[in-house]
């Protein structure tokens, strides 16, 4: 799975999170920070991770979620790493 394909999938998830300013989703890159750039409430991060598991058919380890960074590339890396592990 290509990284851009994953980013596009993540943007689709972010569109369902009503507390995120939808205008800011037009220019999401790997360097976009969920919290600093998108003002995502920290409590929504776990919801985004759970929806990513569903969308990409993976199951994250609790330790990986605990260590997850707040940039888009961090979750893209985790999805690829988890897919390879499975």
């Amino acid at each position, binding site marked *: 799975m290509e990284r851009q394909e994953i980013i596009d999938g993540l943007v689709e998830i972010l569109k*369902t999170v*009503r*507390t995120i300013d939808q205008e800011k989703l037009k220019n999401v890159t790997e360097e976009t920070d969920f919290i600093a750039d998108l003002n995502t*409430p920290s*409590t*929504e991060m*776990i*919801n985004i*991770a*759970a*929806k990513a598991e*569903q969308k990409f058919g993976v199951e994250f380890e609790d330790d990986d*979620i605990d260590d997850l960074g707040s940039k888009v590339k961090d979750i893209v890396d985790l999805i690829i790493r988890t897919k390879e592990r499975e």
Partner: protein
Amino acid sequence: MQLSGRKVAVVGMGGAFPDCTDISDFSEKLFAGKSLIREWDKAVAHGKNIRSVVSGFITETEMNLEAIYSTLAEDYPETYIDKLERIPDANLSTADIGSIWSMLGSLDAIKMAGWTDGETQSENTGVIIGSGGAGHVILRSAWHNFFELGKKTRMAGSHTVDRAMVYRDAANVSCLIKNKGVCESIGSACATGLGNIGYAYRLIKFGLQDRVIAGGVEGTSLETFIGFDAMQVLSRGFSPQESSRPFDASRNGFVCSFGCGIVALEEYEMAKARGANILGVIDSYFNNSDGDGDMFYPSFAGQKRLWKGLLGDDGLKPDVVKVHGTSTPVGDAIELLSVVDVMGESGYHISAPKSQFGHMLGAAGAVEFITALLMLKEQKVLPCLNSAKLNPELEGFQKTANWAGPIKPIEAYRNLLPQQSFTKEINRVTCLNYGFGGTNSAMTVSKDA
């Protein structure tokens, strides 16, 4: 013992009312003698597994809300959309349906009160709102997905705590209006609504706060309904509009309903000084317990002590007694006889608003307090709808050796129980509410002199 303190005015009100668009619609329908009780499709859908199918319920659509269901957890409303954009999405994400009603009611009450942002956001402004049940709608789905479907905890998202915790309604309102004073919830079953307003009144009376947003809420929830249904205490066998019939000889249970009542309270001199429209002045509040060790059965002695505490030294009697009047066989009879024992057989009237919208549980005392304010405003008594036939015989408990109350049948008090709304001079209304556990609450509110 009555303690002197500051006077407390009611300066705003709002809420959520079954089958009504807003508080004006609510008022018009009540004084027109209408019932707000309907057959509930969600109950009917369960066929023979449920006894009662009538309720004063409120749908999401009626409140201009829409549930967004999770793609991760089955049957789980992840958040709600406010189609009228009254509440920001961030606040909606932490709220169950009752908390949203509380926020909407609070915004209406503050607007009516005319408080500035500075006043609302003051250290001297509190929020005291409670609910009878927990966030059952949220908890049922979250628990089902974990325990029964074996899903990870995170599949129900990160808001099951803030959307289901005991004081979620107060917390959500506080986060929305950004007050800096007290934020708490009082829980006392079906006395919750009045209990929260009573506690808020005391905070102002004794100088701890200058303003409080106070009330009670019970969000529409079949989860809540079925608990009472199982107890066989809900009305059945009548048309929806005739199901709630306090004091009527054929009453067989209460109508489980839902709603929200919020009032804005303010220290009287401050409200007066800024030219506020004063909806009522709270004369006194008293609450106690039966002390007889019975969770459910009402206590004549407990209610008599309640009246004694409420009336205190001045003994000012009301023009209208807004009773708890649930439409249960024993509750109504004991309550009526305790009122008569204190108030006598004439010179006042009894109003039972549950006859029109059912029993809103944790919201009952607050919404019914609003009906008392409406009676003061309109100078009309709300009826005891459907109280068509009163028992001409003595109640069973009146024939026992230890009965110390009136020894006339309920029918003897027909003159106190109006079957339709009518106009009269109303200067003072007493509100009564009781709850499981033998808890009793009473408040008297007067027109501003």
